[in-house]
């Protein structure tokens, strides 16, 4: 089983029935996780994507290389301008969003803007997209990286593009990597589970700060049936593109 499928399953498990979820650009894993959740335990989840589509029909859906590909709107039930989804967020009605993180700190804050100084960047990253706006507004924030490393998990961000854990706020922050699943809560950056064939040590060694390690389980993997669903939604294996070989 490819780790992509483990990540997709882990993402899907964060989605509840009746949640409203959005995925943005460059998001094949979230797109599949949302479908997987909706096809299994969360049939009433509201699925909105960056192709402005509401509930694209999974039977006619095929994952494409751009997350905004018009084929991702096929047989959807409505057109939801991204701005309308942002309005939902402002009203406190957007449950969840997925965001990447080029750098992630121990609060789950993320940097997607630049490496180095903003005005003199060493690397200009693509930019934070919806991060600054949505991270303080959603109830469930899922941050993912397929590059679990010290370069990603840093002591201090070069730029705070998005907010992770915020004291006193009802906000569930999950970090899902190619090795493990974390939650940021009041007590810190808690390691919840490691993926099959990954050790806690490997996870911790590849971070510049120490996560809280207490009760660690193994990340559940998708069932045969779930794998078939994923495969049917993504026959071309777009989901593997983010993973370095």
């Amino acid at each position, binding site marked *: 089983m490819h780790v992509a499928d483990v990540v997709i399953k882990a993402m899907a498990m964060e989605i509840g029935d009746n949640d409203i979820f959005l995925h943005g650009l460059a998001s094949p894993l979230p797109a599949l996780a949302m479908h997987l959740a909706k096809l299994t335990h969360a049939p009433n989840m509201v699925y909105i994507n960056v192709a402005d589509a509401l509930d694209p029909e999974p039977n006619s859906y095929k994952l494409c290389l751009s997350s905004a590909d018009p084929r991702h709107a096929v047989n959807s039930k409505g057109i939801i301008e991204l701005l309308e989804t942002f309005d939902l967020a402002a009203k406190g009605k957007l449950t969840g969003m997925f965001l990447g993180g080029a750098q992630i700190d121990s609060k789950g804050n993320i940097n997607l803007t630049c490496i180095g100084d903003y005005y003199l960047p060493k690397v200009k990253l693509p930019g*934070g997209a919806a991060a600054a706006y949505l991270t303080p507004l959603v109830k469930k924030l899922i941050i993912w990286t397929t590059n679990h490393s010290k370069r990603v998990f840093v002591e201090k961000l070069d730029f705070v593009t998005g907010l992770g854990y915020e004291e006193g706020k009802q906000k569930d922050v999950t970090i899902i990597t190619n090795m493990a699943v974390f939650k940021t809560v009041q007590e810190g950056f808690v390691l919840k589970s490691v993926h099959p064939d990954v050790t806690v040590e490997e996870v911790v060694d590849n971070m510049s700060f120490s996560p809280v390690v207490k009760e660690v389980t193994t990340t559940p993997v998708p069932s045969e049936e779930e794998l078939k669903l994923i495969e049917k939604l993504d026959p071309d294996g777009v989901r593997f593109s983010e993973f370095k070989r």
Partner: protein
Amino acid sequence: MQNKLVDVEKAVELINDGDTVTLSGVSMVRAPMGFVREIIKAGKKDLYLIDREPGMDFDILIAAKAVKKVRVAMLGFELFGLALNFRKAVENKEIEWLEDTCGAITNALRAGASGMPFVVVKGVLGTDLVSIHEKEGTWKVIEDPFTGEKILAVKAINPDVAIIHVQKADKYGNASIEGSRFEDVYKAKGAKKVIITAEEIVDTEYFMKYPEKNTIPYFYVDAVVHMPKGAYPTACPNYYNPDYDEIRRYLAMCREGRVDEYIKEWIER
């Protein structure tokens, strides 16, 4: 209604060097690539490009040295990687940049369309973007006059020119965006000048039959250009999908330092 159907060479004259310009579409969907080529051909300079999440349109304009400044929430090629010319130009300080966030920049465009001088936007506070924009004069943290709570005020964006690629338009400028609209309707309604490029020119009867399909009515529009495949290699819903191979070919040539060659070949095609 006046006939606004013009040749692309005529329409491109509406753009002045130094203008703030916004382009339709998102990432690899409905970018006005055909018109972008004309901007490069016409040798426009010092443009200030503004958009939520553009892609090849912005990157190639930067490569062609048409750009002075960029304001975006994200600019990249998704799974294909970074926008190389954007990245290089920023890192070498050849262009200025202002990072925005989707919820703020889309609200700023909607405020521009609505004739509001500014709009208040939730979220954002606590991120490092706030001080960047306060310095820039584009945002300001204010107090809600009713509750006293801190909230972000975002200045409206009213670009000099909006270039919007649509599926169907009539010669007067009534224009129909099919499928995802993104912020394109707001861009058009907030801009000082609007150029429509269209896959198809239809009779006005089309809009009389389907008035709800008129997403950008004629009185907002300054020029209409008939441009089949005008979004290529990005997608135009109901007409064609993105040509991922062509976009990858562009990126490969950029990586090999051959972007000038790509541009030359493209504008001579």
